[in-house]
C-alpha cells in the first residue's frame, strides 16, 4: 500500500486529522513529562509546603447553606491568623470551619470562583491557579498526576505492543506461510490462548506476581497477541499463493527473506490498524488491573491508580470527584482519538478488514 496515497486520503478526513493532532499533542506532553519539563510537582504535597513554613496546618473550609462545598487548603494561613477576629465571626456565621490534619488538604478545581463569591481573594488567587484541576486527598496537583498518567499510558500502550506484536507476527507468519503441521501447531496455540477469557488469563498470571510495572507490561503483552496473530496468519495464507511470492521463491530466496522482506510489508497495514486498537485496550486493562488491586504499585501515578483511588474519594463526604473526572476525560479523549484514527486508517488501507 503506497503510504503517500493513504496520507492523501487521511488529509481530507477532518475528524481523523483532528484526532491525529490530539495524539501528537499527547505524545509531546508525555515526552515533556518524561524529561521532567512538565508536571514536576507530582510528588509535592500541600503538607510539605506547609512544613516548610514551620507551622501547624490550618485549613479554610468554605460553607454554603450548611453543606460543606469547598474545602480549601490555605497556604497563606498567616492572613487568617492575623485576622483572628474576622475568622471567629466567620466561623460563627457558619461561613468557614477550621480543621487540623491532613484529611482536608485538598481543593477542587473551581476554588477560585467559589472564593470570590465569598469575597475572599487576593492572597488565595495565586494558589488557586497553581492547581487548575484541584488537588487530591494527599494534596497533590491533579493535573500533574494526570499528565504523568498520560506518560504511563504511552509507555503501557507502546511497550505492551512491542511485546505482543512481534509474537503475533512471527507466530502468525510461520503458521500462514508454512501451513501443514506448523500451521496446526500455531492454530492450536492461539486457540488455546483465545479460549481462556482474557481478563481471567491476565489476572491468573498477575495474582501471584509482584506488583510492579514490569510485570504488568509483560503480562498484558503476552496475553493480547492472539487477535493480531489470527489476522496475520490469514493474510500470509492468502499472500503465499500470490505470483510475487512464487517469483521470489523461484529466484531462490530464503523463507526468512520472503516472509520478512516480501510478504510482511504487504500485510504491515494490519499491524498499524491493530496497534491503534491495542493501545486503548492495554491502557484500559491497566485501569482494570489497578482497580482489582493487582496492578502497578499504588505510588505510581497511572490513570488506573487515580481511578481506583476514586472509589474512596467518592464515598466520603464531601466527595472528591475531580481526580476521577479528570482521568475519565483524559482517557476518553485519548481512546476516542485512537479509535477515530484507527477507523480512518482502516478505511483508507483496507476497507474489507473490519473488527
Amino acid at each position, binding site marked *: 500500500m503506497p503510504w503517500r496515497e493513504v496520507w492523501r486520503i487521511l488529509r481530507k478526513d477532518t475528524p481523523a486529522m483532528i484526532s491525529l493532532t490530539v495524539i501528537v499533542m499527547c505524545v509531546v506532553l508525555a515526552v515533556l513529562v518524561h524529561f521532567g519539563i512538565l508536571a514536576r510537582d507530582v510528588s509535592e504535597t500541600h503538607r510539605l509546603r506547609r512544613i516548610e513554613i514551620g507551622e501547624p496546618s490550618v485549613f479554610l473550609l468554605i460553607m454554603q447553606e450548611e453543606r460543606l462545598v469547598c474545602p480549601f487548603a490555605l497556604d497563606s494561613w498567616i492572613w487568617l491568623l492575623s485576622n483572628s477576629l474576622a475568622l471567629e465571626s466567620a466561623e460563627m456565621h457558619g461561613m468557614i470551619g477550621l480543621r487540623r490534619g491532613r484529611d482536608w488538604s485538598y481543593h477542587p478545581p473551581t476554588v477560585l470562583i467559589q472564593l470570590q463569591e465569598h469575597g475572599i481573594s487576593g492572597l488565595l488567587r495565586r494558589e488557586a491557579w497553581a492547581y487548575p484541576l484541584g488537588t487530591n486527598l494527599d494534596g497533590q496537583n491533579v493535573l500533574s498526576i494526570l499528565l504523568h498518567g498520560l506518560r504511563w499510558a504511552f509507555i503501557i500502550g507502546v511497550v505492551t505492543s512491542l511485546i505482543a506484536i512481534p509474537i503475533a507476527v512471527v507466530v502468525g507468519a510461520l503458521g500462514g506461510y508454512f501451513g501443514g503441521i506448523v500451521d496446526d501447531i500455531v492454530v492450536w496455540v492461539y486457540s*488455546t490462548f483465545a479460549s481462556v477469557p482474557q481478563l481471567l488469563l491476565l*489476572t491468573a498470571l498477575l495474582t501471584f506476581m509482584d506488583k510492579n510495572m514490569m510485570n504488568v507490561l509483560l503480562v498484558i503483552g503476552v496475553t493480547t497477541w492472539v487477535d493480531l496473530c489470527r489476522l496475520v496468519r490469514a493474510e500470509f495464507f492468502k499472500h503465499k499463493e500470490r505470483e510475487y511470492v512464487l517469483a521470489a521463491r523461484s529466484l531462490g530466496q530464503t523463507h526468512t527473506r520472503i516472509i520478512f522482506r516480501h510478504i510482511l510489508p504487504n500485510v504491515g497495514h494490519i499491524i498499524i490498524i491493530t496497534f491503534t486498537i491495542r493501545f486503548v485496550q492495554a491502557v484500559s486493562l491497566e485501569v482494570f488491573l489497578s482497580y482489582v488491586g493487582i496492578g502497578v504499585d499504588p505510588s505510581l501515578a497511572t490513570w488506573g491508580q487515580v481511578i481506583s483511588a476514586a472509589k474512596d474519594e467518592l464515598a466520603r463526604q464531601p466527595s472528591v470527584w475531580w481526580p476521577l473526572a479528570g482521568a475519565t476525560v483524559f482517557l476518553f479523549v485519548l481512546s476516542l482519538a485512537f479509535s477515530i484514527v484507527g477507523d480512518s486508517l482502516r478505511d483508507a488501507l483496507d476497507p474489507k478488514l473490519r473488527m
Partner: protein
Amino acid sequence: MLFYAVRRILYAIPILFGVILLTFTLFYVINTPDTLAVKELQKAANPETIRQWKIQKGFCVYTDEGFRKKMEIEAGRAAPGTEITEEDIRPVSKPILFLHYSVDLLTFNFGRDRDDRPVSAVLLDGMGPSLKMMVPAFCLSEMISIVLALFCALYRGTVIDRAFVVLAVFLMSFNSVALILFFQKFLAADWRYFPISGYESGLSGYVYLALPILIYTALSMGAGIRFNRILMLDEINQDYVRTARAKGLGENTVLFRHVLRNALIPLITRWAVSIPFLYLGSLLLETFFGIPGLGGITVEAIQNADLSTMRAVVFLGALLFILANVAADILYGIVDPRVQVG
C-alpha cells in the same frame, strides 16, 4: 452433518488439553509453591502453615518417615517433642502434579478455598445471581443494539446513520471503571434513584439489579451497535437483497424479512460465544454493586490470591468458551450447510 459435528467436537479436545496445560503453567510452573503459599496465606504464613498448605494443595506429600510421624502424633503415641519438619515432606514431581491437576479439573474436583469451603459449592451458589443479572442485561443490550443497527441500515448514509455511529464510538471510548463509579455515585448515592448496592433473591431483587443492568447496557451498546450495523450492511450488499428489490419488495420487507433473518446466523454465533461472559457476570459490576455472583467471587479470589478458586474459575471460563464455540459451529453448520465442507 453428524460427521461434521463429531469432527468439530474432536477438534475441541486438543484445545481443552492446551487450556489445562496453559493454566497448569500459569499456576504451577511460573510460580514456586512457596510463593503461592505466602501469597494466599498472607499474614498467617509461617513454615508450619506453608507446609500444611503445600500438602493440602497436593504440591508435596509426606515421606514414609513423615507419614509415620504424623500418624503417631495424631494417635498421641509420639515421643514428646516429635515434630514434622521440612525433611518429612517431599515435593511431587511436575508430571505427576500435572496428572493430578488434569484429573481434578476434568472431574470438577476443585478442592477447598481459602476459608475451607468447597469451591464447587461456592461457584454453584454464585451462578444464580450472575445469570439473574447478566441474562436480562445481555438481552436488553442486544435488543437495543440490533434495533439501532437496523435503523442505521434503513437510513444508511444519512445523518441518522452517522449519528448512531458517532454515538457508538463515543460509548466505546468511555472507561468502564470510571463510568461505573460515576453512575453509582450520582444515580445511586446522590440522587437516590437506585439503591447503592445489595442483593435479594426473587423478583424483588431487580430493584438492586436495575442500575447494574443499565450500566451494562450503556457499556456494551457501543460495540453492539457497531458490530450489528456492519453485519446488516454486509447483508444488504448481498445478491439476494438485490433480487428481492428487483422483484418489487418494499424496503421494510427486504430489511425485516430477508436481511434480519440472514443476519441471524452470525448473530447466533456471537451470542453463543458470549455465554462464558454471561456466566462470569461482569467482574466489575458485581463487585461494585455487592452482587454475590461469580464475578464478585472471582475478584475476591484475585484479591485474596486464592489458588483453588482462581484455577477453578479460569478452567470453567475456558471450558464454557470451548463448548460454546463448538455449539456455535454446529449451529452454523446446520443453518449454512456450506460450512460443513470447509
